């Protein structure tokens, strides 16, 4: 050992010991609030390493055929003149909505279960109280109620890796950049897409679903004073799609667009490759200012090397309601509301955002974060289940804060490699589901806070199956019967089941990969113990996140523990389940499902679409390529000064209006 104890303890620990960067990553949540969230590689617990988590907006299945398109070189596409388009297209008007006003209307219609004063005095220790708190405090302000000069301290578990909107890759970035970005589209609490009334005047789609036309408002200005035009949108598309620019995350989705063309300063038309129901998500991509990047991006397509780009990283130009005024790397990021967002030429053109200043304070360690919340140094924080259950129940917590929870469409599972000799048989996969001690996991590891897994769609989703799904419970007899039936019997009497494959006896011993987080380890250990009881041996292999990704991409695993967060559009799941798709790590293949996905993509009627996806969910539930374990809740602590938090299936912030609905009352 090196000499000093600081070495001995801390050096080995210097090299080894770190919690929250592994932990404290983005809270397992999808990226931009305004943009399309998609199936995401979530990790259990809040904590996810920044790079790992969320692939950015993406994931709509490409093309009309099941085959993943290897992009053919596009013939140069000349956009037809606007008059020709207007003549042929037969435009349908699409919703342009003010998300905040719509939310206010929706909330006003819901009954108020308690007054604000009552809710503030409550302790959130039951679903009834939780509903009361959300109902009373999750309201939008009436006239004069909100304090527009308010400041709020928000929690960030991990620092941004880039302030450039098209380089986004983590939830931390979506939290911050969602407030400073210029965007055209969003989706609401019910995951319905719309064009933002703050930026869009008119949105139309052609009847044949091949074109989308957007007319921007004329009172949009970047934070350096230059007007925002349709040319910025077209330019952003060009940069994102250029092969030299390394932004694969953001590119997914946009590569389903044939072209984005700006006809004048206000009119932009999106040309799709095929008439799909999922086209609406592809037109949602981050926008960067053309007048800033036009001269510089080609010289440095990585957007981070040249001195100009380095400077831009430090002082980005904002197009949204806030701009970054100060950034101390690793410590905090200060956002201030832009005056020229809501007031142009002296006239008020948009709603003033509820906060004057938003300060993101970076605290990686969850214990320190909770202490900061208790002390009032931050106003909101995502809580771990353990913190929710045990450390936020006493009076000293409720002195300044309250808390709320809601279900999220994030589910965790064991993924079985259907190509491995162990899990190619459906009976074996079902046996795994029957052998696992679900009750123990739900009650102990999950603190009784999560609901059991029900397959790929959450029971409250519009596309979920209406047939009742019976969650698996531990039934060792049934598991053993299934294994016996599948031919896994202990022939050689060594305590481990085996089967003859290709003339050799193969013992049923496999490795399950998981991340290095305690909850993942606990659950996999539980699997190991459950299966040990019926003669199946499991080796649990905690794996570094990057390596875990790699192994899954290479399909080099027997079983793995992981999670997905649901995309806004059910078609995003085809990435995982259709034959040969990129996230189909377990090599599952079912032609019926492939067909249903293809149909769902092109089916424009919502209820008929829902039927198809429901059927997909049922088939998958029977086939059990995953053993679905639980649906996670999101848990948040809020200062008693805050109001207006509303939960969606993607948490309180990652939808429209998201954080924009929070406010502080005037004192």
């Amino acid at each position, binding site marked *: 050992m090196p*000499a*000093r*104890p*600081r*070495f001995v*303890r*801390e050096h080995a*620990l*210097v*090299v*080894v*010991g*770190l*919690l929250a*960067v*592994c932990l404290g990553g983005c809270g397992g949540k999808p990226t931009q609030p305004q943009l399309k969230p998609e199936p995401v590689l979530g990790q259990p617990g809040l904590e996810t*390493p920044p*790079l*790992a988590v969320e*692939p950015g907006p*993406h*994931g*709509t*299945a*490409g*093309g009309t055929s099941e085959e*993943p*398109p290897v*992009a053919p070189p596009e013939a140069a596409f000349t956009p037809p003149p606007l008059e020709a388009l207007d003549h042929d297209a037969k435009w349908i008007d699409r919703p342009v909505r003010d998300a905040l006003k719509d939310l206010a209307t929706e909330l006003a219609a819901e009954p108020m279960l308690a007054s604000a004063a009552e809710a503030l005095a409550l302790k959130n220790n039951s679903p009834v109280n939780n509903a009361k708190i959300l109902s009373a405090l999750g309201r939008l302000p009436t006239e004069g109620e909100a304090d527009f000069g308010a400041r709020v301290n928000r929690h960030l578990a991990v620092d941004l*890796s*880039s302030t450039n909107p098209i380089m986004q*890759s983590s939830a931390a970035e979506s939290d911050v950049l969602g407030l400073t970005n210029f965007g055209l589209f969003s989706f609401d609490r019910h995951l319905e897409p719309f064009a933002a009334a703050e930026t869009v005047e008119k949105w139309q789609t052609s009847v044949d679903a091949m074109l989308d036309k957007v007319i921007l408002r004329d009172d949009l200005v970047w934070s350096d004073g230059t007007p925002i035009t349709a040319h910025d949108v077209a330019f952003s598309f060009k940069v994102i799609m250029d*092969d*030299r620019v*390394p932004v*694969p995350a953001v*590119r*997914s989705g946009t590569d389903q667009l044939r072209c984005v063309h700006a006809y004048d300063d206000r009119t932009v038309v999106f040309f799709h490759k095929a008439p799909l129901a999922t086209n609406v998500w592809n037109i949602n991509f981050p926008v960067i200012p053309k007048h800033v990047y036009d001269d510089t991006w080609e010289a440095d397509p990585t*957007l981070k090397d040249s001195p100009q780009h380095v400077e831009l*990283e430090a002082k980005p130009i904002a197009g949204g309601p806030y701009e970054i005024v100060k950034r*101390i790397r*690793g*410590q905090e990021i200060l956002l201030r509301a832009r005056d020229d967002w809501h007031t142009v030429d002296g006239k008020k053109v948009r709603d003033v955002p509820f906060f004057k200043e938003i300060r993101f304070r*970076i*605290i990686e*360690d969850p*214990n320190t974060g909770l202490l900061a919340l208790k*002390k009032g*140094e931050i106003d909101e924080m995502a809580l771990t289940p353990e913190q929710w259950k045990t450390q936020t129940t006493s009076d000293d917590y409720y002195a300044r804060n309250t808390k709320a929870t809601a279900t999220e469409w994030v589910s965790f599972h064991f993924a079985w490699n259907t190509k491995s000799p162990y899990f190619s048989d459906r009976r074996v996969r079902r046996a795994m589901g029957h052998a696992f001690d679900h009750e123990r996991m739900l009650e102990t590891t999950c603190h009784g806070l999560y609901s059991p897994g029900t397959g790929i769609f959450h029971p409250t989703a519009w596309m979920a199956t209406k047939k009742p799904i019976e969650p698996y419970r531990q039934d060792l007899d049934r598991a053993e019967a299934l294994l016996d039936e599948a031919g896994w019997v202990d022939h050689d009497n060594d305590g481990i089941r085996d089967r003859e494959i290709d003339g050799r006896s193969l013992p049923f011993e496999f490795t399950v990969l998981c991340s290095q987080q305690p909850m993942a380890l606990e659950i996999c250990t539980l699997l190991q113990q459950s299966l040990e009881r019926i003669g199946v041996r499991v080796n649990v292999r905690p794996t*570094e*996140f*990057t*390596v875990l*990704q790699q192994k*899954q*991409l290479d399909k080099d695993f027997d079983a793995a523990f992981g999670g997905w967060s649901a995309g806004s559009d059910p078609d995003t799941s085809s*990435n995982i389940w259709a034959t040969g*798709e*990129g996230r*189909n790590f377990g090599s599952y293949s079912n032609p019926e499902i492939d067909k249903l996905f293809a149909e769902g993509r092109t089916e424009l009627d919502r209820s008929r679409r829902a039927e198809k996806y429901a059927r997909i969910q049922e088939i998958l539930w029977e086939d059990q390529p995953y053993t679905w374990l639980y649906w996670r809740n999101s848990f948040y602590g809020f200062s008693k000064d805050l109001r207006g938090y509303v939960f969606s299936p993607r948490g309180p912030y990652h939808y429209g209006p998201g954080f924009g609905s929070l406010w502080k009352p005037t004192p």
Partner: protein
Amino acid sequence: MIHYLLRRLALGLVTLLLITFLVYALIRAIPGTPLTAAVAQTDPSRRLNPADLERMNAAYGLDKPWYQAYFLWLSNVARGDLGRSISRKAPVTQLIGERIGPTLALSGSSLLLAWALAIPLGLYTAARSGKPDERAVNLVLYMLYSVPTFVAALALQITFSIWSEGKLWELPLFGMTSGEAHETTIAWLADVGWHSILPLACMTYGGLAWDARFINTNLQEVLRQDYIRTARAKGAGSFRVLGHHAFRNTLIPVVTLLGLSLPALLGGSVIIEQIFTWPGMGRLFFESLRERDYPTVMGLTLVFSLLTLAGQLLADILYALVDPRVSLE
């Protein structure tokens, strides 16, 4: 002396080359690249075609064989350019520069504080060896040593930040500064100093037992020497014996320790940096390794190695100064 120094510098350069070469080979051998995460995030419906992958690799300089990439890095370093961080999109020198100050501030003060406390403790325990008060002091020190850092950190945070809220001795919960603008540098320094008290305490308490025992052990050995007996026989008081005769003869191991502590000045403590959100090099290293951010990892390794080599050279020179029997070759 000059010859010796020149020789050591030349040797140091060769060693440095060897070290950076080995480290680069190792980190390229570890599975996963900076793009692994990016690839995982790609649109999965699009089978990532090899041409795309190659383009992305080229953009990050990963398409070359690793030894070529190493020489490229080396040539850049010779020109003073440590490259750009892949995951953080900023120059490596900037990243390191941002963190050197805070790390040094904390480790440097911790080192000084630890020795300031350990030397008297070591002397005291050596003088009172075997007596009950020495046993008691040692017991307390061992107990301190056994407390895990995160326990101590949380206990300190709760005591001095939560329970002491509003009081005069309330200490900041986390962070390096309070984020407010400061008029003068003195005010800023005071702010940083105030924020560093808790992390400093956490860094120092554990090493006290070790350092004190180290001095104690070496002193014991020296105290048994004949010349000490002579000094005592000649009537020298115990403090003079300890302080003047004995302690100086323990300087060689102490110098070794100093040489070994130098790199730790920039190593930082990952746990403490993370609990207190202190922008330190330890965290930077850990995160960039996890992200496979090769330029940053190499930059940090270079800095650490430089310091390590400097520390050993310093120790070797000091040996000759401290003990006449040791000569520089």
